[in-house]
């Protein structure tokens, strides 16, 4: 028995594993079959009745999402009969929909709108009073629910049942009074809630964090990797292409890493990217200076020191390329390897895992960093709550590559205070915290959104970041700075 079946969709042949549905086959063949309730990451509901296709030999149209693909099957998705059915399916979905697109935050990325343009374009025959349902419901800290816009596809219910297993949502009442909602006294509170806004094909669930901030057609997306933890979920990062303002992250499907989802913690990874949240220019003893002057100060400080008098404190939030670049430059300047420390927050439980995606190691590149250190034959010293090892080496210069994501370092202030007490403490990072102000020299760096480079996730998967133009043009990546320092030290020497 073969475990593959070959069928034809619109006369195009496609081979899929036995047990696949017509929808799976259509996806593989690149044939778009309109759908609302079907979602590749959830079980099959078969309720929207939108994905109907003609199967030769079957008297009635069949739903693509639940009809098994079989050998020699002939499927049609474009005949007049099928098109007419899609139009009517859309009409039924829309007769009680409020059509409040001008004030709906989903506009622009609404499947009702998209499908109307794709397979609809009919004149509605609905002239009667629409069914009215509760609006603007507060269903948790992150989401707002408009049950009138809901098309009852049940994606959110299935997500709650199958992915987070929190089962907060249900469809209550029946017929055209059927309404989506939370069970009495229940709120949506888990770390994956924004996925509900993503999978909602309409404007029923909207994200409090994003709604009414920016129309989606002003946004441009960058395919990159979430820096929020060691899972490294694949994401699209959305930026207003005119104002350079970052607004949100959404998951990007990667079966090997994050599937279809990402956590709410990861969703906040845009906040520190915008200008108001970060250090704009270098500060020497609190005085703003140029980048060139800052790098000259570093070069002067390390010049002539023996390697063991320079301490390099790393956090695992930089790319492989940055670690390699910094180490190479310093080795050249110092004619030896500096003392390398790895700073972990004292509260960290790196092996924690929530069972879905989120990991206790809040650094995106622990594995990559350790790999690079190994390549350079460096055995780093761990700094976790106890900083005596650093003080014990009495360095003349201490260079700290601070964490970009400070949320992963709840004891950041305490640690920074200790580091800043060191002689000639230099801080690379964008921190605006009080403790950071105590450093002798502070130099802003590029964020994950502004650099291309590699993160290696907990599982050893190496993934590339994609660089957007930097928010501050004077700001560079830490390896670029050290290349500069290398040149300056060389010139001076």
């Amino acid at each position, binding site marked *: 028995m073969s475990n593959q079946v070959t069928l034809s969709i619109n006369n195009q042949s496609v081979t899929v594993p036995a047990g696949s549905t017509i929808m799976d086959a259509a996806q593989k063949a690149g044939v778009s079959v309109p759908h609302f309730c079907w979602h590749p990451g959830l079980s*099959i*509901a*078969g*309720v*929207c*009745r*939108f994905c*109907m296709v003609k199967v030769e030999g079957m008297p*009635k*149209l069949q739903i693509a999402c*639940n009809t*098994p693909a079989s050998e020699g099957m002939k499927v049609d998705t474009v005949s007049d009969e099928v098109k007419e*059915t899609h139009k*009517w*399916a859309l*009409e*039924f*979905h829309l*007769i*009680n929909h409020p059509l409040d697109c001008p004030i709906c935050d989903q506009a622009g990325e609404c499947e009702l709108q998209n499908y109307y343009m794709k397979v609809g374009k009919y004149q509605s*025959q*609905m002239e*009667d*009073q629409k*069914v009215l349902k509760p609006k603007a419901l507060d269903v948790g800290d992150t989401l707002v629910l408009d049950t009138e816009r809901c*098309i*009852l596809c049940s994606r959110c219910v299935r997500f709650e049942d199958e992915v987070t297993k929190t089962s907060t949502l249900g*469809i209550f*009442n*029946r*017929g*055209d*009074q*059927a309404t989506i909602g939370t069970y009495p006294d229940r709120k949506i509170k888990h770390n994956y809630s924004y996925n509900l806004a993503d999978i909602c094909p309409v404007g029923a669930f909207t994200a409090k964090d994003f709604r009414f901030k920016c129309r989606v057609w002003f946004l441009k997306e960058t395919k990159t990797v979430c820096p929020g933890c060691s899972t490294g979920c694949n994401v699209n990062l959305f930026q207003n292409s005119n104002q350079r303002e970052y607004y949100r992250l959404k998951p990007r499907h990667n079966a090997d890493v994050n599937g279809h989802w990402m956590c709410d913690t990861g969703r906040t990874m845009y906040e520190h990217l915008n200008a108001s949240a970060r250090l704009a220019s270098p500060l020497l003893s609190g005085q703003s200076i140029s980048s060139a002057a800052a790098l000259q100060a570093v070069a002067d400080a390390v010049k002539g020191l023996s390697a063991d008098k320079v301490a390099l404190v790393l956090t695992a939030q930089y790319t492989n390329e940055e670690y390699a670049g910094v180490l190479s430059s310093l080795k050249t300047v110092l004619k030896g390897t500096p003392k390398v420390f790895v700073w972990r927050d004292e509260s960290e439980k790196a092996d924690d895992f929530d069972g879905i995606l989120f990991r206790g190691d809040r650094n995106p590149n622990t594995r990559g960093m350790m790999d690079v250190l190994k390549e350079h034959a460096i055995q780093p010293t761990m700094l976790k709550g106890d900083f005596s090892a650093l003080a014990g080496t009495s360095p003349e210069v201490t260079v700290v590559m601070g964490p970009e994501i400070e949320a992963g370092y709840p004891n950041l202030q305490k640690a920074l205070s200790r580091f800043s007490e060191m002689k000639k403490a230099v801080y690379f990072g964008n921190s605006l915290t009080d403790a950071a102000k105590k450093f002798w020299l502070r130099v802003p760096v590029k964020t994950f959104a502004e650099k291309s480079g590699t993160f290696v996730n907990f599982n050893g998967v190496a993934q590339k970041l994609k660089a957007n133009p930097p928010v501050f043009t004077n700001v560079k990546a830490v390896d670029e700075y050290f290349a500069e320092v290398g040149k300056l030290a060389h010139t001076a020497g």
Partner: protein
Amino acid sequence: MPVMNSAYNGRQPNEFKVLTELEGIPNSRSLEVYKKHGGYAALEKILKGKMSQEEVINIVKASGLRGRGGAGFPTGMKWGFVPKGEGEKYLITNFDEGEPGTYKDRYIAELNAHMLIEGKLIAAYAIGASKSYIYLRGEFYDEIAWCEQAIKEAYAAGYLGDNVMGTGFKHHMDVYIGAGAYICGEETGLISSLEGKKGQPKLKPPFPAVKGYLGKPTIVNNVETLAVVPWIIRNGAEAYKKFGTEKSAGTKLFNISGPVVRPGCYELPLGYPLKRFIYEDCGGLIGGKKLKAVIPGGASAPVLTAAEVETMTMDYEAFAAAGSMLGSGAVIVIPEDVSMVEVLENLMHFFKDESCGQCTPCREGTGWLLKMSRGILQGEGQPGDEKKIAEVAGKMMGRTICTFSDAAAGPARSIPQKFAHEFLEYYKKKSSAHGQG
């Protein structure tokens, strides 16, 4: 045109007694009376005669018995779908009798619930189920009590339990009370409800015979279907086939409602002339009113005009040929002075209330059909609205998980098509004397 079985000429309905044998007998509900009339003899014949499951299924297949709940699927064939061999299997009786106009199943329980229990035991034996349920409509207080009483008696008499009649056959039975949703009469909706979930039909495949209640092979049969099985086993498939037509074997309970002189539950052979039933058996319409239309098989069945009734026979194929259906056998008689627009609005109200809301065309369509028909009734309609109703109904057909949407579409298409002129009256009046608030 279907030809009536000539054997019915000159015979009265009381000569066709299969299910209604105990009618009029004092204390008919007791186990004693039931046994006196051959009760549990069929079960004994099977168990003590060591008949194979296959033999039982073959007798039922040979009898031509079709599901009496509405769909008319051949019963023996349905039983045959259950995978053979070991493993948990379930038999469920659909006693969620909710089709408007239907009151035949409760009549069986009123006569004697042991008919159902014996039929269930035989079916359970045939499919290899050691557990069965009677899913009862919550409003049927008396019937619940009668079924529970009969189950108790059957346990006491050794017909139910770990060792039925000392033969080693094990079967347990329970009553489960529904909450009055029409859709729980749909077999997969019923299974969902029995599982403790919201009563909504399930996506097929998988089919219940393979993966039903709690994911196990499950057969759902109507009360009337199961209750007639003991008679068939006792008297043989041939005896049963003497009633009815070639494709519609046996007798069937018909419930007639509307202004007829003698409404009630009648047992008739299938293929019986509808006109004769209304005018002779039921005494015609009260006050000699003229017949306008008949809904022949419960609310879901498309309406027949008085002209169509003239030659109609009451069997699966004749109703189907006329674009309607035998359904549950609930004959609803509509006299000349009832407005078909009111009938439509009434039916649409029912379907709008009872749609489970799962599939979009049904959820949205049933509500829309009600709004449109109510609008016409209230004098807000305009020419063409009746066509729009029929068109929308047409787009609801064959596109949903279960056939509820098709059922709602049945009258919504047939009434505007067959009685278009009555709609015109409403458009002219603009404000109708029949209007409801």
